[in-house]
């Protein structure tokens, strides 16, 4: 795809890709809802940053990724992990602090990992994984590996110096990276206007750092899919990095399973207006309308997902806690 087709174009994915996009978004949504439903039982004893409302960016990006491509994420990582093919039961067990967790319970929700799936790491210190991903890309190119690196971060992370420093280096060295900013307008309870210049985009920071940049509707999975098609393939073909910014919105509280409009930092109307643009439901309606899916397909997808998720939670709850000795393992490599 050319940049023009990627931005304004109306190229659509094939029907089976559309279905896959929908299935992937729905899966993340249902997993997150299952966490939300059970979180107040106080058995998942770690902070969780729920990504409901933000399912489209990782879904549209991952549709263009291959297994050997690597993904880096921050605190709101569940969607990035699942979309890249991260093992779902291992993620749920990790949140429960169990020995079957993807990090043996040592990391929790904020430190997901699935190396087989190419989901390299997630960490909650803002912007911290951005430079790490840049280093991966730098090493991959030196070692002649066919690998695209995708680095996800929020609008808040772009205020850290390390973000700018990493972008600069990636631009100077034309590294095979897609930087993906999910701009959801808030950093915890602080709105964008308090933190960044008025009427600006994050995307503006691409060109001065030597890379193309685009922004798009982060609630429209096909818009994401088009931009990602361009950026991922460019990186794969030696065209260097791209900065993508997706405008989207978080539905739940910053950290935890609840609605938080009572806090007053954002209005219920604002939340409702974004819910009306739900990335999952609007896409479902579109696919029904254009005949890509029918009711029977939707129902069978829901049922399959429901079974998969219930099984993951049952397995996580039945998984043993790590033994006390595990505390002292892994401090240094053996």
């Amino acid at each position, binding site marked *: 795809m050319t940049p023009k087709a990627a931005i304004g174009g109306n190229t659509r994915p094939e029907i089976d890709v559309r279905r896959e996009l929908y299935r992937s978004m729905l899966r993340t949504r249902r997993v997150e809802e299952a966490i939300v439903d059970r979180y107040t039982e*106080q058995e998942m*004893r*770690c*902070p*969780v940053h729920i990504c409901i409302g933000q399912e489209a960016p990782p879904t549209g990006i991952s549709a263009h990724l291959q297994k050997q491509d690597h993904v880096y994420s921050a605190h709101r990582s569940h969607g990035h992990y699942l979309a890249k093919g991260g093992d779902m039961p291992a993620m749920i067990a990790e949140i429960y*602090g*169990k020995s079957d*967790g993807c*990090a*043996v*319970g*040592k*990391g*929790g929700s*904020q*430190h997901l990992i699935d190396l087989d799936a190419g989901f390299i790491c997630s*960490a*909650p*210190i*803002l*912007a911290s994984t951005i430079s790490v991903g840049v280093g991966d890309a730098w090493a991959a190119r030196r070692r002649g590996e066919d690998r695209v690196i995708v680095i996800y971060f929020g609008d*808040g*992370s772009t*205020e*850290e*110096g*390390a973000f700018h420093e990493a972008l600069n280096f990636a631009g100077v060295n034309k590294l095979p990276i897609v930087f993906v900013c999910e701009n959801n307008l808030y*950093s*915890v*309870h*602080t709105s964008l206007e*308090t*933190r*960044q210049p008025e009427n600006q985009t994050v995307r503006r920071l691409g060109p001065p750092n030597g890379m193309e940049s685009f922004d798009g509707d982060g609630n429209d999975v096909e818009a994401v899919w088009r931009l990602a098609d361009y950026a991922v393939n460019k990186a794969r073909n030696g065209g260097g990095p791209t900065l993508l910014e997706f405008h989207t919105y978080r539905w739940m509280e910053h*950290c*935890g399973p609840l609605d938080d409009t009572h*806090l*007053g*930092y954002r209005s219920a109307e604002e939340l409702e207006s974004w819910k009306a643009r739900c990335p999952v439901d609007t896409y479902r309606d579109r696919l029904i309308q254009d005949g890509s899916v029918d009711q029977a397909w939707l129902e069978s997808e829901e049922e399959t997902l429901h079974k998969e998720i219930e099984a993951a939670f049952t397995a996580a709850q039945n998984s043993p*806690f*790590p033994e*006390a000795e*595990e*505390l*002292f393992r892994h*401090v240094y490599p053996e």
Partner: protein
Amino acid sequence: MTREIKYFEALREAQAQCLESDRDVVVMGLGVPGPTGVFGTTKNLIDDYGPDRVLDMPSSENAMTGMLLGASSNGMRPIMVHMRVDFAVLSMEPLVNQAAKWHYMYGGKMRAPLTVRMIIGQGWGQGPQHSQALQAWFAHIPGLKVIMPTTAHDAKGMLISAVRDDAPVISIEHRWLYGVSGAVPEEMYETPIGKARIMRPGKDVTIVAASYASLLALRAAEMLADAGIDAEVLDLRTITPLDRESIVASVRKTGRLVVADTGTAEFGISAEIVCAAVEGASESLKSAPRRVGLPSVPTPTSPALSEHFYPRAIHIAEAAAATLGAKLQFTEPETGKWHDVPDPSFTGPY
């Protein structure tokens, strides 16, 4: 009767009174004017002191610390707040290379009256990057003062002292102290930096502790009392400058020493305290000092692992008994299902 308020309320009151009494005081940090106000410690301050003095900031800890250093060296008295000490790690350059050395390096001509509040945590799966206890890092840097108040009274008085101090002061606050109440005078007062305090007098063994570990030490002292051992608890309150005199005086009296700290034991502040005792009171020591702290591993997230990671009062009691050559069995009060909360009212995430 003196008024009782919670630790977090005492911190808020200290900041309110500093803002009230000195136009040059500002409070800045992520979420400071926000609806939850850094666990309540800055909540609604913006209503009384306005957005020019109670400020949010971009997620730019490094540059914002340098920025406040610049403001402080030009006469302001900023209070910077970090929800977790782990975020302050991004501000080490301006703190360590600059602020700490400003006064010395410029021949006494510059001052950096900057106060940086950092919260350390425990439990509820905060894990490797949200619950470190880095007091020893800061204490290692000449030019920084490091305070770790334990009681609500000291939280208020020491924060006021910190703001009025012309040196950069790091205030390390343990999240599990926030809900603890204590008598706190309503007026503005200073609790001196650099002075430890005997929380509980005793004659058999000295337990030196700071912050939340001091509360554990008090509990341990009760367990020891039941076993006929009379422990003295010395609450450090300030890490640097260290009150060596009080440590030495107490060890001279009891002849035995246990140090309890919320940080990693190895290369932690406990080593310095043992050293102070050995240097100042070796002739009085009747047995080898012991210490209780975290093992040298990152904080695990799983509650099943953090249960074995954090020391409890019983570990301090056992260490104290061991300095008397006694191997005693202590019983802990029943806790609920989980060990990762200070009391059942504490629910996550936080």
